[in-house]
């Protein structure tokens, strides 16, 4: 094994040093060894080395082989494997190519010399030849050696193939077979060679290889028996883990040096992006610098931002920071490689001898590595885009373990770059520096300069300070863009007067000023335009200077507008290209010519898109009111067949961003009115609506003027009655529905008109237009107040048959979603909605797709009834807010809803209405809402439902002021109500008796609420609670009524009344009663044990009376001695523990919990001491222990180790026992 590891180490060194090994075995010496595998389990299986030419070396190690041919002889074993390998390979279609494959017998340097004869004999066959003839021509020693080999392989071959090998087979075997001596003991020849190679190529000097070589041998030992192949990367990583950090990459050192110098040159060239050209260079320090470095360390990402935001500057800063920390950074700028069309071009431009990804992979060392690619957008859809995208994709997949990729791109180009989005799919790297529209991309957004950053830059220059101090709001905002600030700084450095900036309000204006100053002659602007023409023609942002056909090109280079690098020129910033193209190249003054210039494919479009934005802004700024020329141009672009849609979208987006008030839309509105059937207009408006919607959604706001402008457009679109124009209106209105301020009466009015027109339109179709009608219902609901009568007339249709039965499952949920604006405008209609929605039901359970259309992600279906029930959910959860707006109508809504719900759900037949006399008036109790528990008892299974009507009613009653409570009571005292509503009024009144007592007391002059089975408990509670604050007159009046037995029609009713009185008198002390008769009655009841607890009438929790006795009897019947003995003792202790458990609620003080714990532990000890208990006794005991332990563990007052309570270890130990209890046994629970 030691020899095997040593030989393997020799091969591994050659893999690491990238040095061929073929020469030693007479095979291809151009190929490099690639992987090594030990104990492969096939063929000559000690070591297998694969080669870069597809061949392989199969090595078997025998320290001391001879030519002996006995069965156990080493050569016999190796020869047999050789024969099997070649025989199998030939049977499968051909022998391995002997120029790239070898079977090697590796022996120690001191092995038998006769093996040299065998090697020499085999080599005689390297050029082919007949077995017998060639063998016959060898000397005696070699013949003997070949005879020995022939004997061995013939026997093995015959055993496998059942026939002897032919002469050709023997020749093939001899050609493939090699004997090689290895001297790999430390200090021996091969060891020294390996050590020198390793040191020289990977570790900096010939002498540095010794230590890593020893560790490499250890690594090889570990590989034995593992069977897994190791390649260069794996070997390097293993060595790095052992502390051997490589410093060289054989064969790649030159390329690596090139990349390092390109990086250094780029960082130097781009340093200017982090500075302002004033006062000798002002460094711009960004607050985002540190977060960005942290984000980059977290993994590959895209750096995004608007043009000129300062992406390059921050990337350069990040790169320098990472390098300073010892990281390896390769920095490439896409705009340096304008002519790159395929990957080979990039390698050639960088003058690399290898593929770039391969070089990255070969980079030595173990430090963090970053590939930073700046300005992906410079590719502008050209061929180089594909090259860099592929570079990014390959690095991120092939080198994911070692390399982090960071690339910068403008947000606009990212939106159009599907492959970038796919490569960097993920979540934003830092939430504080994220673009809301890029939620699915791992990115870092470089935003505009903050106040602090601008101020810090300003402090270094007096001119800049003056400019910033005097800047208008618009200019100040412009100067937050690093590019703009740099332009301003350049102008100031040129001697421009800060006061001269006063009139600048747009980026275009600022760049105009810059261009006018730097290019003062017509010739210079013509030269700039020519430069753009050449760039557009070649679809690159850098062209040969000679291709700019104007003599003044040198002047604009001199002026700094163009930058020259060698023979190439490019604009000094991409934004400058865009602006010059928009101003001096695109014919913004001649729309027909402009459209002709835009002809072209997507890559042309991407190159010109930012320039078109500047051109359109120029047109907009000089356009007449209503912007007719601007809208005409965009319409023409949309109807032009040869213009790429990207440009139409840019043009339209530019216009939509510039709209600030309704007047800006006049040109478009006129066109809508004049040519509503124009299909390209429909397509434009459709796209426009989505842009506006996205913009509003992204910022979640819209100015009042803009809201009115877009709503006005929507209304005009509605008036056309043309479906293709109505959907855009819906999209616009939806954005305004979400984010518009409807307290603005003008907006509300226009929106309401448009909404009602839309609903009328949707319903006028047969069948109705579903998507539009549901949106329109929401819109009409939201703008209900704009015209109450008209809105109500429309929405009532949702609630009435036949429309209801056909459409309520789809429509009612949206109507009810808007219940609050409806309630605020017209509470009577809101109450009507509650009555109708709870009083009707869609009983159809036909399947419907959830959300209207079947989802591709989760195609869940629902049914019409379930869909309809969403509307009840909306109403239920909104009830509290409705009650706050109108206690009166809200209360009527609860009453009608409860009645309707009871009737529809039908858990009991509606009872005959019960007439209840409230003193001042009589009402009916309708319906019968069977409640399983008293309303104020917690029901664990149903608690917390936010749409629970009655629970929300209680919340209102508890939180309302006296006036609101009074209005609610007044509403419940009219015509009809439900017992459930009155139980809550009475119950909450008893809780708030100090405030509400006087309000409610008058209804108690009549006994009806006390006599009613549903309300009696809460009526008793109220009377008892209010009693102390009653005047003696009121008490006397009540007591007189109470003891007046003459009012009972029969004995049964009298008895029933006395049971009710028994509940009440149990709560009122004798001394608080004013009539002797009442006192006597109470005294008698008390003496007879007749006073009753005021329990809920229906309570589903029940207890076994005398359960213990019953259980004991059962045990006796089972033959258990229950008079004394362990069973009785444990039985009694169990029951005592159970009693204690019941008396110790979860909220008990720690002391009480500790006592329960102590009893439970004593009980545990008792059970442990009595192992032969009856099953039932044992089970009860453990059951009660479990109860007690659970009570302690679950108590909010349990503090580990405090006040005699167990610490967590003790608790865990007991719980661990309980968790492994045999109870419940399998049949005990029912599933």
């Amino acid at each position, binding site marked *: 094994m030691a020899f095997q590891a040593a030989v393997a180490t020799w091969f591994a060194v050659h893999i690491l040093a990238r040095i061929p090994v073929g020469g030693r075995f007479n095979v291809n010496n151009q190929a490099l060894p690639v992987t090594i595998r030990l104990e492969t389990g096939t063929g000559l299986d000690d070591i297998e080395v694969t080669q870069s030419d597809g061949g392989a070396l199969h090595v078997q190690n025998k320290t001391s082989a001879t030519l002996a041919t006995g069965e156990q002889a080493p050569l016999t074993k190796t020869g047999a494997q050789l024969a099997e390998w070649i025989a199998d390979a030939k049977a499968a279609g051909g022998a391995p190519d002997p120029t790239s494959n070898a079977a090697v017998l590796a022996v120690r340097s001191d092995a038998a010399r006769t093996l040299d004869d065998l090697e020499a004999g085999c080599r005689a066959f390297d050029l082919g030849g007949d077995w017998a003839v060639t063998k016959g021509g060898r000397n005696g020693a070699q013949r003997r050696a070949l005879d020995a080999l022939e004997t061995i392989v013939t026997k093995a071959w015959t055993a496998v193939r059942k026939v002897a090998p032919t002469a050709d087979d023997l020749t093939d075997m001899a050609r493939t077979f090699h004997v090689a001596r290895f001297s790999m003991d430390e200090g021996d020849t091969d060891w020294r060679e390996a050590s020198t190679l390793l040191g020289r190529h990977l570790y900096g000097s010939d002498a540095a290889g010794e230590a890593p070589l020893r560790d490499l041998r250890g690594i090889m030992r570990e590989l034995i028996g593992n069977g897994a192949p190791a390649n260069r990367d794996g070997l390097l990583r293993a060595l790095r883990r052992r502390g051997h950090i490589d410093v060289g990459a054989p064969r790649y050192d030159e390329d690596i040096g090139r990349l390092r110098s390109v990086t250094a040159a780029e960082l130097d060239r781009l340093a200017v992006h982090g500075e302002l050209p004033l006062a000798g260079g002002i460094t711009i320090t960004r607050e985002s610098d540190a977060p960005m470095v942290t984000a980059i360390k977290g993994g590959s990402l895209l750096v995004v931002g608007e043009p000129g935001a300062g992406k390059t500057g921050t990337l350069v800063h990040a790169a320098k920071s990472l390098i300073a920390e010892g990281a390896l950074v390769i920095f490439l700028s896409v705009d340096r490689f304008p002519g790159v069309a395929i990957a080979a071009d990039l390698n050639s431009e960088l003058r690399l001898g290898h593929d770039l990804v391969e070089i990255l992979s070969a980079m030595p060392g173990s430090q963090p590595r970053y590939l930073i690619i700046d300005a992906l957008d410079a590719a502008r859809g050209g061929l180089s885009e594909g090259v860099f995208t592929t570079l990014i994709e390959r690095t991120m997949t092939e080198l994911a373990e070692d390399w982090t990729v960071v690339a910068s791109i403008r947000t606009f180009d990212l939106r159009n770059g599907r492959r970038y989005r796919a490569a960097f799919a993920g979540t934003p790297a830092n939430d504080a520096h994220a673009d809301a529209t890029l939620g699915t991309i791992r990115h870092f957004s470089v935003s505009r300069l903050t106040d602090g950053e601008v101020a810090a830059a300003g402090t270094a220059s007096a001119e800049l300070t003056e400019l910033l101090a005097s800047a208008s709001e618009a200019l100040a905002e412009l100067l937050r863009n690093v590019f703009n600030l740099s332009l301003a700084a350049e102008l100031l450095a040129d001697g421009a007067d800060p006061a001269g900036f006063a009139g600048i309000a747009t980026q275009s204006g600022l760049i105009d000023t810059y261009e006018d100053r730097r290019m003062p002659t017509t010739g210079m602007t013509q030269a700039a335009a020519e430069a753009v023409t050449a760039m557009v023609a070649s679809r690159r942002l850098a062209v040969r200077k000679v291709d700019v056909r104007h003599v003044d090109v040198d002047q604009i280079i001199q002026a700094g507008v163009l930058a020259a690098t060698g023979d190439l020129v490019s604009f000094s910033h991409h934004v400058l290209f865009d602006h010059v193209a928009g101003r001096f190249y695109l014919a913004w003054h001649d729309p027909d010519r402009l459209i002709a210039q835009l002809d072209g494919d997507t890559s042309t479009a991407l190159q010109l898109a930012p320039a078109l934005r500047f051109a359109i802004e120029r047109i907009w700024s000089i356009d007449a009111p209503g912007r007719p020329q601007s809208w005409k141009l965009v319409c023409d672009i949309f109807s032009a067949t040869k213009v790429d849609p990207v440009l139409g979208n840019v043009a339209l987006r530019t216009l939509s961003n510039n709209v600030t008030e309704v007047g800006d839309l006049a040109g478009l509105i006129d066109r809508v009115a004049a040519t509503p059937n124009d299909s390209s207009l429909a397509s434009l408006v459709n796209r426009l609506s989505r842009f506006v919607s996205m913009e509003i959604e992204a910022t979640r706001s819209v100015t009042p003027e803009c809201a009115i402008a877009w709503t006005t457009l929507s209304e005009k679109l509605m008036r056309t009655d043309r479906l293709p124009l109505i959907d855009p209106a819906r999209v616009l209105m939806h954005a305004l529905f979400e984010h518009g301020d409807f307290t603005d009466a003008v907006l509300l009015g226009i929106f309401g008109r448009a909404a009602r027109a839309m609903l009328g339109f949707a319903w006028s179709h047969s069948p109705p237009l579903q998507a539009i009608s549901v949106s329109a219902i929401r819109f009409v609901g939201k703008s209900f107040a704009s015209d109450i009568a008209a809105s109500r007339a429309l929405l009532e249709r949702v609630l009435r048959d036949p429309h209801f039965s056909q459409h309520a499952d789809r429509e009612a*949920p949206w109507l009810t979603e808007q219940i609050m604006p409806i309630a605020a405008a017209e509470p009577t209609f809101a109450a009507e909605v509650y009555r109708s929605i709870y009083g009707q039901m869609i009983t159809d359970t036909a399947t419907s797709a*959830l*959300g*209207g*259309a079947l*989802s*591709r*992600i*989760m195609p*869940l279906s*629902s*049914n019409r009834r*379930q869909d309809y*029930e*969403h509307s009840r*959910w*909306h109403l239920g959860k909104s009830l509290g807010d409705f009650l706050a707006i109108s206690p009166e109508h809200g209360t009527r809504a609860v009453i009608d809803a409860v009645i309707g719900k009871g009737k529809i759900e039908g858990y009991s037949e509606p009872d005959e209405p019960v007439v209840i006399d409230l003193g001042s008036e009589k009402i009916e109790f309708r319906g019968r809402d069977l409640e399983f528990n008293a309303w104020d008892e917690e029901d664990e299974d149903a608690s917390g439902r936010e749409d629970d009507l009655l629970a929300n009613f209680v919340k209102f009653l508890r939180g309302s002021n006296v006036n609101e409570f009074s209005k609610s009571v007044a509403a419940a005292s009219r015509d009809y109500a439900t017992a459930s509503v009155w139980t809550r009024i009475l119950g909450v009144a008893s809780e708030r008796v100090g405030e509400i007592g006087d309000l409610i007391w008058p209804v108690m002059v009549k006994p009806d609420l006390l006599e009613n089975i549903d309300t009696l408990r809460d009526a008793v509670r109220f009377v008892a609670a209010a009693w102390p604050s009653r005047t003696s007159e009121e008490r006397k009046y009540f007591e007189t009524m109470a003891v007046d037995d003459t009012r009972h029609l029969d004995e049964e009713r009298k008895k029933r009344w006395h049971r009710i009185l028994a509940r009440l008198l149990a709560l009122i002390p004798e001394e608080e009663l004013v009539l002797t008769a009442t006192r006597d009655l109470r005294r008698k009841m008390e003496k007879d044990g007749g006073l009753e607890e005021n329990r809920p009438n229906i309570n589903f929790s029940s207890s076994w009376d005398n359960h213990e006795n019953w259980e004991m009897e059962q045990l006796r019947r089972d033959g258990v001695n229950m008079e004394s003995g362990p069973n009785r003792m444990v039985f009694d202790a169990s029951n005592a523990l159970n009693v204690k458990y019941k008396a110790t609620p979860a909220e008990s003080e720690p002391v009480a919990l500790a006592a329960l714990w102590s009893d439970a532990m004593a009980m545990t000890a008792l059970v442990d001491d009595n192992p032969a208990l009856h099953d039932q006794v044992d*089970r*009860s005991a*453990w*059951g*009660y*222990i*479990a*109860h007690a*332990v*659970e009570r302690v*563990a*679950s108590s909010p007052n349990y503090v*580990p180790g405090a006040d005699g309570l167990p610490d*967590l270890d003790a*608790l*865990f130990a007991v*719980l*661990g026992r*309980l*968790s*492994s*209890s045999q*109870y*419940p046994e*399998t049949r*005990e*629970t*029912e*599933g």
Partner: protein
Amino acid sequence: MSISWGNLSVRVYAAEAWVSLASRFAEERPEIVDRINEILQDEEPAVRLQAARNLQVICKAAPDQMWSIGECIAASETDEEVLTAYLAHALRRFSHAEPERCERILILAKERLSEFSDKGGSGGRLQKCLGGWAAQLHAKQGLLIFTEN
């Protein structure tokens, strides 16, 4: 049929105790999370039910494990009520914060609908539960999950 258990079902009450302790102490004592996991392996549905319907208690201590345990429940829990309790109680709490992860689990459960087709007269408990989920997401979260491409 619903799962029910006797007053003396020791492991059920022990499970309740572990669940209560988890919400307070699981961060400092991660073995509680292991216990919760063991509870979910109990042969008795009533025992598993305690952990399944309250799985959110390990949310702070072991969020990743909570989700992976949740996926196991959705993919392999044999008792419909236990599965439904998990979806309707524990998982529901994450409907706003983690809709995508919830959806993944719901899809796992949904693929098993046929295994529980009204078994034991439950009236399609799982189906109703998934419907309810859908309704909640549909009504409260503006269809995002179900209609987005």
